[in-house]
């Protein structure tokens, strides 16, 4: 026990001191603990300590049936709950070789993209708040509310939906769904200009983010930084393009890339991604085909023995699910490759020799969701 507690710490120079950022700290967005070694205000080293919200989801999955696993994945990255559900559904459907109806694919794509927008909106507002622009927080939440209303009307809940089921959906979309979504797109196209006006173009914001925490493409690949953060370094890592699922190979959208790799680039990539997501939704929303919302699945799903891997592009990057089945109704092992956990790894690299304020900005720009790190 002793060895574990007394982890070897690099011998410190006299002027260096440590501060604990977290587990309760406004800008770690949850119970993440960063032990920051400082010299004056300059960050020398960041040691993330995770595990404060570890709930053993992977272990819990081993006693749950595949339908029940869905509601656990909601609680990993709660901001892209639908997309997490999607991964499990695709895994089960792929293993059983079930072809879901077109309608399901359309709806899943639209809902995923709505979820992505909602997640990026929340990221935007917390990013603004971390940099001290408190008003951003309310604008972001105000607009996210519209998406949550759409979700609530169709799926019955606002954050953790458990809406997808292996083989299709829990229930059909609400008759108002299409109209509301179109209204939202119209509304948000107007409001996203506010985002640009209040933050993106602001000179203070530009100074705070440009050239801060630069990550080269090689570094992004070495550290496995995926999602918008990786794409901001010019790494084409969008699963929707590379391994298309649902309707992503049929819709036309741009993989937003940037070659700067700094905090500002990560910011702009996400803002542009919201626009791209709206474009995807606009292409699909009017053409949802009629049909069943689910295929008939057996009440007890048993995957054939073997190993499976399924990845999707969640709002934070690649979410991979690795599953070993021995033919029973529960998996033998379920492993989640969550994007936040991998992206956290690069925080130390990026924030060395920066100021504390930059550490906050970099952490915010990586868009970490703590339950996604700990699972």
């Amino acid at each position, binding site marked *: 026990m002793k060895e574990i507690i007394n982890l070897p710490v690099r011998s410190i120079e006299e002027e260096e001191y440590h501060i604990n950022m977290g587990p309760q700290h*406004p800008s770690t967005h949850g119970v993440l603990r960063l032990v920051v070694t400082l010299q004056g205000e300059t960050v020398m080293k960041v040691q993330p300590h995770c595990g404060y919200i570890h709930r053993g989801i992977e272990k819990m999955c081993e006693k749950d049936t595949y339908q029940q696993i869905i509601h656990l994945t909601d609680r990993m990255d709660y901001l892209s709950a639908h997309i997490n559900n999607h991964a499990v559904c695709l895994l089960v459907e792929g293993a059983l070789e079930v072809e879901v109806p077109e309608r399901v694919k359309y709806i899943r794509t639209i809902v995923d993209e709505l979820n992505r927008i909602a997640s990026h909106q929340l990221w935007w507002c917390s990013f603004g708040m971390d940099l001290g622009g408190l008003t951003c*927080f*309310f604008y972001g939440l105000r607009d996210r509310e519209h998406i949550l209303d759409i979700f609530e009307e169709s799926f019955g809940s606002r954050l953790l939906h458990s809406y997808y089921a292996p083989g299709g959906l829990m229930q059909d979309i609400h008759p108002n769904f299409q109209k509301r979504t179109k209204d939202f797109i119209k509304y948000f196209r107007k409001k996203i200009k506010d985002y640009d006006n209040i933050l993106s173009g602001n000179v203070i914001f530009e100074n705070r983010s440009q050239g801060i925490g630069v990550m080269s493409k090689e570094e992004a690949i070495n550290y496995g930084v995926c999602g918008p953060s990786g794409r901001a370094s010019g790494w084409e890592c969008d699963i929707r393009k590379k391994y298309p699922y649902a309707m992503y190979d049929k819709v036309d959208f741009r993989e937003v890339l940037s070659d700067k790799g700094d905090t500002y680039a990560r910011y702009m990539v996400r803002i542009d991604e919201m626009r791209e997501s709206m474009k995807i939704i606009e292409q699909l929303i009017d053409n949802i085909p009629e049909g069943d919302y689910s295929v008939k699945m057996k009440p007890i799903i048993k995957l054939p023995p073997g190993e499976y891997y399924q990845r999707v592009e969640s709002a934070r990057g690649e979410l991979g699910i690795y599953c070993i089945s021995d033919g029973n109704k529960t998996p033998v092992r379920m492993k989640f490759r969550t994007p936040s956990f991998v992206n956290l790894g690069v925080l130390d690299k990026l924030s060395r020799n920066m100021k504390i304020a930059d550490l906050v900005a970099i952490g915010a720009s990586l868009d970490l969701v703590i339950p996604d790190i700990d699972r």
Partner: protein
Amino acid sequence: MAFNIYDFTSFTQSIDEALYEWLPPFWALIVEMTIIGLVFLIGYAIIGLFLVYAERKVCAFMQNRVGPNRVGPYGIFQTIADFIKLLMKELVYIKNSDKLLFNIAPFIVIIASFMAIAAIPFAKGLHAIDFDIGIMYVIAVTSLGVVGVLLAGWSSNNKYSLIGAMRSGAQIISYELSVGLSLLTIIVLAGTMQFSEVVELQSSGWFIFKGHIPACIAFVIFLIASTAETNRGPFDLAEAESELTAGFHTEYSGIKFAFFFLAEYMNMFIVASIAATVFLGGWMPFHIGSWEGFNYVMDFIPPLFWYFGKTAFIIWLMMWFKWTFPRLRIDQLLNLEWKYLLPINLVNILIMAFIVLMGWHF
């Protein structure tokens, strides 16, 4: 006792005379000081509480919210309720903190702001003391507050507090320069440092109009620098709640925290009053050259109203800044001061001096 809402000189004088008639001079002085102290104390509390409420309402409206609306109509008693809550809260004593300094720090902060209001003219003849170096006195006294902040950060024995205090020290020392220099620009124009005279001189037109371009630049610089001096966003680095949780007052609770909080708002009020007095004519009504009718109507509005109106406007501007902009980083903050504000300010004073020499001002 003549009470005139447009001119308080005779009113205050009559009180003064009456006191000296009834009492020996020493006691009269004591009583007078007590009265003034009490009036200011009450005014201080009321203005502080109202500003907290106003800030919360203003930021709520900017953020599409309604703000406090539960306690009393439109939530006007919210801050009083909060204040009572803070009064009743436990004072947490920190282990290994420097007890004496820790306890003294909030008082230093609040006394510094308290001393500054003494010199501010609220209306004609309505000020506690009218120095001939009034502006200088206010600059000197407001910068005392930083001592309290530094002590608070040092004595709490908390690294976050210490970082916050050090930031605040660096910030206030450098922005003090800009505040002083931008006021100096106007002193060059006015030729006096006495607040009453500064206001009197603006009866024919506010200094921001009289001194046109240099005065406008000085006004903008003063606004920026004084926002920084009062530790408000976007320059709230000493608190920087997303970085340092609450900066120098992380460890304070209950009434001591309330003191810091109140002092912050009073500092804002003082700074806004100085801006209103020096640039916008203080309690002087708004006059336009030869529009007799218009000027007459403006004169009709009582000076107290003008004074508080202008101050409120500047406070609103500062709130607007805070609720729009992201926070600067410490090195950018110092860059802004030393690379932009200070050189511009120095050149600006030269221009102003030149304009005054040539008599180009109005």
